[in-house]
C-alpha cells in the first residue's frame, strides 16, 4: 500500500491511539494501554520509514498532496495539505523514531505512576500534532500542529496537576507561548496580506521573485520574518521567552526528553528553516536570528554552570543548544542547523532519559548534591550518560562534534561580525563541556552523599535501558554523515538537504578546507579545556558551595523571572483587577446589560396598562384595527400615500 499517496495515515495513527486510550484506557490494564500506545506510534514510525523509502525510490521528488479543503473563504484557502521533502524526511524520522523510543522508555518509567492511560493518551496526541506540524504544507495547518503541541506540552508539564508548582509551570509555559504565537499569527497575517496565500509553495515561489532587501532595511519580508521568529523564540525557548522551559522540567522526565528536548522545542528551528527563502530575502532578520541564537547559547550555558538540579542543568543546556541551531540558521547554514537539530535530538534525548533513569534509581531524587558515586551501581545508565556527555561536549567522533563544528565554521565564515559570533559560540562550547562534566562528576563520582538506608539504588528495567543504548549508539554515529567532509569529501547531510535549501545555503567554500581543520581542532581543545576545569573543580569537591557574587547571580538565573514579574506580571495584574474588572466589566459592561434590562422594564411598566387582560377590551381593539384597515383599502383618500384601494 503506497503510504506516500495517503500520507495522512502517519499522523492519524497516534491520534487514534490517543482517542482510544483517552476514552477507554481508564478501564484497561497497563498491558492493553501499552499495546495501543506503542502499537500506534510504532506502526506510524514504520509507515514513516516506508514513506521515506518510497520518497527516495521516487527520485526524491518533493511530494505534495491536498487531501481536503479545511477553510475556504474567498481567495483564501487553507486545506489539509501534506508535503514531504528532504527537510520533512529528517524531521519525520526524528519525531517518529525518537518518539517511539521514548514511548518504550515511558512504559518502564511511568510504570508506578497514576493516570497511566492519561499520560500515554497525551503523549500520542502530542505525536499527532507534531507530525501535523512537520508534514503541513501551509502555515495554517502548521499553526494547528504548533498550537496542538503547545497544548500537549501544557497538559504534560502539568501532568502532576495536584502539585502546585507543576500546574503553575504548565500555565507559565502556555502563557509565554501565547506571546510567541501572537507574533507568529501576526507574521501569518502579514504574509497573507502580501502574498495572498499561506501555502508554502505559492508564498515561497512569489517571495523568490522579490528583490532581496538590503541589510538594515525593515521591509515587508523582514518584518514578517521577525514576527515568525518571535513565535519561534516562544516555542524554542530563546531569549527573551526562554523562561518557561526550565520550569517545564516539572513534567515527567520522558516528557522533558521528548517534548522539551528532542522535538517540540525544535519546531521554531524547523519553521525558520522551512521559511528559509523568506529569511534569505531578509538579511536583517537573519542577523537578528543569529544574534539572538548566539546570545541565548551563551546566556543559558552560563546559568547551566551552577544549577544543582540535574534536569535543570539539562534544560538550560537544551536552551543553549537551541541557540546554536538558531545561530546556524541566522548565518545561513540551515542544513547545519537541521543537522544539529537531529544530533541534538539524539544525545539530548539520551541525556534526559539517562537522567530519568538516575532519578528513577535514586527514587525521585533530582538534586545532584545528594548523589555521587553512582557509576558503580548503575553501570548501563552511567555509560549511556557518559556517551551523551561526550557527544554534547563535541569530542570526535561523536555526533555533536560534526554538527557543532559545522555551525561554528559557518558562523566564522559569515560576512558580518562572524568572528564575534564564532567567539561567543566557542565560549558557549567550553561552558557546555564544563557543566556537562560537572554533572557527570557530581552524579557518578566521589563518595555517595545520600542515605544508604533510605534510598536503595537499583538499575532501571530493560524497557528503559534498551532505548538508552539505541540512543547512545545513534548519538555516537549520528554525525558520521559529515565525516567525509573532514577529509575533503562532501557532507552527505548537506548534500541530502541541498535540494531544499539550495541557493539559500551559505557554504564554507572549498578554499576553507584547511581552515576547517584548524577550527575543529580548536573546538576539541575548547571541549577538553571545559573537561579539565570541571575535573579540577568537582572531582574532589563534595559540599554544596555557599553562593555569593557571580555564583549567586547565576544560581538565581540573573533574576530574570523576578524582573519579568516586576515589569510585566504585576502591572498587568493591577490593570486587570483595578481597571478592567472594577471599571470596564463591573461598570461599563454590566452597566449596559442592566441598563437595557431596566429600560425594558420601565417601558413595560409604562405600556402594560394596555394589557388589561380583559377579552372585551382586546375585542374592541381588534374592531378598531379592522375599521382602519378597511378604511385604508377602500378609501385611499384617507391615506393618499398608500396603494389605491380596489380598482
Amino acid at each position, binding site marked *: 500500500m503506497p503510504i506516500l499517496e495517503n500520507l495522512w495515515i502517519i499522523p492519524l495513527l497516534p491520534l487514534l491511539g490517543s482517542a482510544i486510550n483517552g476514552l477507554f484506557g481508564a478501564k484497561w490494564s497497563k498491558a492493553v494501554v501499552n499495546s495501543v500506545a506503542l502499537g500506534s506510534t510504532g506502526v506510524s514510525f514504520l509507515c514513516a520509514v516506508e514513506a521515506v523509502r518510497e520518497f527516495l525510490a521516487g527520485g526524491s521528488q518533493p511530494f505534495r498532496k491536498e487531501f481536503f479543503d479545511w477553510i475556504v473563504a474567498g481567495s483564501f484557502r487553507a486545506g489539509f495539505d501534506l508535503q514531504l521533502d528532504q527537510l520533512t524526511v529528517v524531521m519525520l524520522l526524528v519525531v517518529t523514531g525518537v518518539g517511539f523510543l521514548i514511548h518504550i522508555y515511558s512504559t518502564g518509567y511511568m510504570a508506578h505512576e497514576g493516570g497511566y492511560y492519561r499520560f500515554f493518551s497525551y503523549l500520542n496526541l502530542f505525536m499527532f500534532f507534531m507530525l501535523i506540524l512537520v508534514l503541513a504544507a501551509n502555515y495554517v495547518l502548521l499553526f494547528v500542529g504548533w498550537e496542538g503541541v503547545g497544548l500537549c506540552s501544557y497538559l504534560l508539564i502539568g501532568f502532576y496537576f495536584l502539585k502546585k508548582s507543576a500546574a503553575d509551570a504548565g500555565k507559565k509555559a502556555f502563557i509565554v507561548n501565547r506571546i510567541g504565537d501572537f507574533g507568529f499569527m501576526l507574521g501569518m497575517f502579514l504574509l497573507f496580506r502580501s502574498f495572498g496565500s499561506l501555502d508554502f509553495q505559492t508564498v515561497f515561489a512569489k517571495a523568490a521573485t522579490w528583490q532581496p532587501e538590503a541589510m538594515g532595511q525593515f521591509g515587508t519580508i523582514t518584518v514578517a520574518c521577525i514576527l515568525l521568529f518571535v513565535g519561534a523564540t516562544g516555542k524554542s525557548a530563546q531569549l527573551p521567552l526562554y523562561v518557561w522551559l526550565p520550569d517545564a522540567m516539572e513534567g515527567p522526565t520522558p516528557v522533558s526528553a521528548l517534548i522539551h528536548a528532542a522535538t517540540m522545542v525544535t519546531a521554531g528551528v524547523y519553521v525558520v528553516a522551512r521559511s528559509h527563502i523568506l529569511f534569505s530575502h531578509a538579511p536583517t532578520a537573519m542577523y537578528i536570528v543569529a544574534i539572538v541564537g548566539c546570545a541565548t547559547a551563551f546566556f543559558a550555558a552560563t546559568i547551566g554552570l551552577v544549577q544543582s538540579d540535574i534536569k535543570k542543568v539539562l534544560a538550560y543546556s537544551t536552551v543553549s543548544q537551541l541557540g546554536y541551531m538558531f545561530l546556524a540558521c541566522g548565518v545561513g547554514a540551515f542544513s547545519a542547523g537541521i543537522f544539529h537539530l537531529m544530533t541534538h535530538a539524539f544525545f539530548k534525548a539520551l541525556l534526559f532519559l539517562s537522567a530519568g533513569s538516575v532519578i528513577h534509581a535514586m527514587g525521585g531524587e533530582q538534586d545532584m548534591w545528594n548523589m555521587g558515586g553512582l557509576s558503580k551501581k548503575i553501570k548501563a545508565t552511567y555509560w549511556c550518560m557518559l556517551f551523551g556527555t561526550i557527544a554534547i561536549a563535541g569530542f570526535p567522533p561523536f555526533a555533536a562534534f560534526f554538527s557543532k563544528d559545522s555551525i561554528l565554521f559557518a558562523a566564522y565564515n559569515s560576512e558580518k561580525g562572524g568572528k564575534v559570533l564564532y567567539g561567543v559560540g566557542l565560549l558557549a562550547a567550553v561552558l557546555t563541556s564544563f557543566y556537562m562534566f560537572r554533572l557527570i562528576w557530581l552524579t557518578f563520582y566521589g563518595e555517595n552523599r545520600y542515605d544508604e538506608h533510605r534510598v536503595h539504588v537499583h538499575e532501571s528495567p530493560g524497557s528503559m535501558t534498551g532505548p538508552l543504548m539505541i540512543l547512545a549508539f545513534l548519538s555516537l554515529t549520528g554525525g558520521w554523515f559529515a565525516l567525509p567532509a573532514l577529509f575533503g569529501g562532501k557532507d552527505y547531510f548537506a548534500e541530502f538537504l541541498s535540494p531544499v535549501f539550495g541557493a539559500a545555503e551559505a557554504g564554507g567554500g572549498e578554499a576553507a578546507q584547511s581552515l576547517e581543520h584548524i577550527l575543529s581542532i580548536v573546538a576539541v581543545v575548547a571541549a577538553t579545556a571545559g573537561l579539565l576545569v570541571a575535573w579540577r573543580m568537582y572531582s574532589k569537591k563534595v559540599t554544596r558551595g555557599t553562593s555569593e557574587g557571580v555564583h549567586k547571580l547565576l544560581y538565581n538565573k540573573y533574576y530574570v523571572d523576578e524582573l519579568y514579574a516586576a515589569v510585566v506580571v504585576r502591572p498587568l495584574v493591577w490593570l486587570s483587577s483595578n481597571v478592567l474588572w472594577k471599571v470596564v466589566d463591573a461598570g461599563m459592561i454590566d452597566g449596559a446589560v442592566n441598563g437595557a434590562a431596566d429600560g425594558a422594564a420601565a417601558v*413595560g411598566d409604562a405600556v*402594560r396598562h394596555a*394589557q*388589561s*387582560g*380583559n*377579552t*372585551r377590551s382586546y*375585542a*374592541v381593539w381588534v*374592531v378598531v384595527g379592522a375599521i382602519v384597515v378597511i378604511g385604508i383599502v377602500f378609501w385611499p383618500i384617507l391615506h393618499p400615500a398608500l396603494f389605491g384601494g380596489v380598482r
Partner: protein
Amino acid sequence: MVPTNYYLILSAILFGLGVLAFVFKRNIITLFMAIELMLNAVNLAFVAFSQALGKPDGEVFVLFVIVVAAAEAAVGLGIIILTARNRRSLNVEHVNLLKL
C-alpha cells in the same frame, strides 16, 4: 331574481351584529356563538359571490369554513369547560389573568 348586493349587504349586517355581540356579551359561550355568527355571515357572502360569478368554488370554501368552524367549536368548548371548572365563572371579564 335577487340581486347579489342584497345578499352581500345582509351578510355585512349579520357580520356587524356578530361583532357587536362579541364586544357586548360577557358569557364566554355566547362569545363563541358570536364568532359562529360572523363565520356564517362570511359563508353567506361566499355563496352569494359564487352564485354571482357562476362558479362553485365559493361553495367549496364554505364547506371548508364549516369544517373549520366545527373543529374550532370542539376545541373551544373544551377550553370553555376547563375554564368554567377552574375559574368557577363563565363571565369573560372574570377571566383576566392575562396581564401584568
